[in-house]
């Protein structure tokens, strides 16, 4: 009997919505639109939204969707807790640790001191007498900046190409998909090595390097997002948006992008891992110009100093290895738990943060519609 309100009822926050409406809106319109067609109270075309959504409501809904529900799920997921704490430690090292640990210089200490032998050099020293711990700590900020810029660029370009190609179709799709395919076919590391060698003058800061590494990483994401958009664009809510003549820009940013958000966030975390692996590989190969120590450079110098066959230098090789793998573990655990956060089943359980059953009224409504 309330078929005209099903649209509003179907929202996630059904219960709160009802409380916000002080009086039944049907009372207002009942007198004007009663027809003799057997009881339909008012035309479904006249009521677009029976409730005005205030700014506060919208903020509330945003927080609910992007902060409270994810947090309530993640709080109960050990993966998220471990992953976030690992990343938090790296962040602390990159911000506070840099001030606590003095930067190291050649001949600061004895040569090739082992780890855990002298508490002045907890992780030992290199063959030139540099403190391994200080080197590892002081390379964290630049690596994190590289990771962030690379991951953001990857998802930015990948999402833009994928969404536009998938939604526009036709000629635009052909051109963008061709570019994407070319980049998928070009193996990433060799391309980055060639570009880094030829453009070495321009790659003098972590942000630029992150962007360069992302050049080899965005295409796969673009292709995956394009095929997702291909299915979303035929959904009825996009069709209605087109029918009421919303601009393409609006549809892309306000209707399609939120649908893809889970996918994009998970991929951003994975892209960060790819970027770090590639960056350290390039420094390890010694094809990037560098001015200060970082994990890849440490691996490189240790390798060059013959750490592979000198057990007394193992610690020098192991510290950067553990640093890379550690941050990767953090990122993977975070990606796995984010996958759960966006899983609709886990979400429904945690919506509203209470033990209520938000699915119930919705199912009732649907059966109602079916009967009418």
């Amino acid at each position, binding site marked *: 009997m309330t078929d005209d309100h099903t649209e509003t009822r179907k929202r996630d926050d059904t219960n709160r919505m009802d409380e916000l409406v002080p009086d039944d809106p049907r009372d207002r319109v009942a007198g004007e639109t009663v027809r003799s067609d057997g009881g339909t109270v008012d035309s479904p075309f006249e009521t677009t939204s029976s409730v005005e959504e205030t700014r506060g409501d919208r903020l509330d809904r945003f927080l609910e969707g992007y902060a409270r529900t994810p947090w309530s799920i993640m709080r109960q997921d050990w993966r998220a807790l471990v992953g976030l704490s690992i990343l938090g430690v790296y962040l602390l090292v990159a911000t506070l640790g840099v001030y606590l640990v003095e930067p190291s210089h050649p001949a600061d200490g004895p040569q090739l001191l082992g780890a855990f032998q002298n508490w002045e050099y907890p992780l030992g020293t290199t063959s030139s007498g540099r403190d391994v711990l200080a080197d590892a700590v002081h390379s964290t900020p630049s690596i994190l900046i590289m990771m962030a810029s690379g991951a953001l660029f990857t998802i930015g370009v990948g999402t833009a190409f994928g969404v536009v190609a998938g939604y526009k179709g036709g000629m635009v799709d052909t051109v963008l998909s061709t570019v994407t395919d070319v980049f998928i076919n070009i193996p990433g590391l060799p391309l980055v090595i060639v570009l880094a060698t030829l453009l070495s003058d321009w790659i003098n800061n972590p942000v630029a390097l992150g962007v360069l590494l992302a050049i080899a990483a965005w295409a796969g994401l673009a292709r995956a997002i394009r095929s997702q958009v291909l299915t979303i664009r035929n959904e009825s809510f996009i069709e209605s948006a087109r029918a009421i003549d919303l601009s393409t820009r609006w549809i892309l940013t306000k209707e399609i992008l939120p649908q893809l958000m889970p996918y994009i966030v998970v991929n951003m975390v994975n892209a960060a891992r790819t970027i770090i692996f590639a960056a350290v590989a390039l420094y390890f190969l010694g094809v990037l110009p560098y001015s200060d120590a970082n994990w890849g450079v440490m691996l490189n110098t240790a390798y060059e100093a013959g750490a592979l066959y000198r057990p007394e230098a193992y610690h020098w090789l192991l510290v950067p290895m553990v640093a890379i793998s550690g941050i*990767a573990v953090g990122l993977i655990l975070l990606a796995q738990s984010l996958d759960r956060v966006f899983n609709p089943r886990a979400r429904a359980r945690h919506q509203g943060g209470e033990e209520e059953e938000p699915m119930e009224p919705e199912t009732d409504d649907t059966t109602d519609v079916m009967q009418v």
Partner: protein
Amino acid sequence: MDWKLRRFGQAAFTVWAVMTLAFFLTRMMPGNPVDAFVAQVGPQLDNPQEAYEMAEIYMNINPEAPMHVAYWNYMTSMAVGDMGQSMSQNAPVAQIMAEAIPWTLFVMSWAIFIGFAVGISLGALMAYWEGTKFDTVLTGYATIITSIPFYVLALLLLITFAYRLGWFPTSGRRPEGVTAGFNLPFIFGIIHHAALPVFSMFVASGVASLTMRGNSIRVLGEDYLRVARLRGLPDRTIAVRYIARNAILPMYTGLMIAIGSMFGGAVVLEEIFTYRGMGYYMIQAVRARDYPLMMGAFTIITIAVVIALLVADLTYGKIDPRAGNEGNDAF
């Protein structure tokens, strides 16, 4: 048929695009290798004009020719397999590459095959025993192995099995003192040298197994599987024809991209093991600023990936009957 033709066209286009990119980078960037070469070699010669001729011999690009002529000459010589002359190795680039290609293909195809086969089987087992201790242990193992970069695993393997235990050679690609050919010691020696590089790529199995696990669990809940069970089909048929097939197909795009990145990884891997394949020569070229060899190696590695992906795409059509009809939407 139309779809196959389109796929071939796309592969050809990619090769053309990469060669054009190579030309653009070698000739048109500010401070590009050709200009740098002329500026460096020119003053040392009695007749500075000779520098231009030498540039053309080494890089197939005549710095004096107008851009479109230089481009045309570059593309035509690439098309007939003339990739210029290596400065550091003192041999034609094409010859160095032709000799290196089989080694890289040998190692990488085994690495890809073993990585995916192990990953997919482990993923299936994990899904089959979902929730048991076996599943928990293996999921943990897969997560850890995924977080280790392949070159770190390569270094660890090299330290443990080559330097400490001495089971495998520390470098090189073929046994010494054995005549090359189809004889047992030689074949065994090659496998012996390739073993560690192949197993370094084992990290790829981690991602594959986790994806396979998720997909299989999803398929296990599908209705058509209940129907298949009710029909009384043997377990084996259900496992292979229903679950495995439907779980592997969605992984396809991921596997394709993995092929590309694993071939790219050959650059690092061959450098670590001093395995003289395409990637090894590429890094040597970068270190020596030997631009013709660098660009040649880059082009050849890319063409190898393009061909590998083309083959993968065409065989995919055989596994999934839907791929051929839907055309390029079947990415």
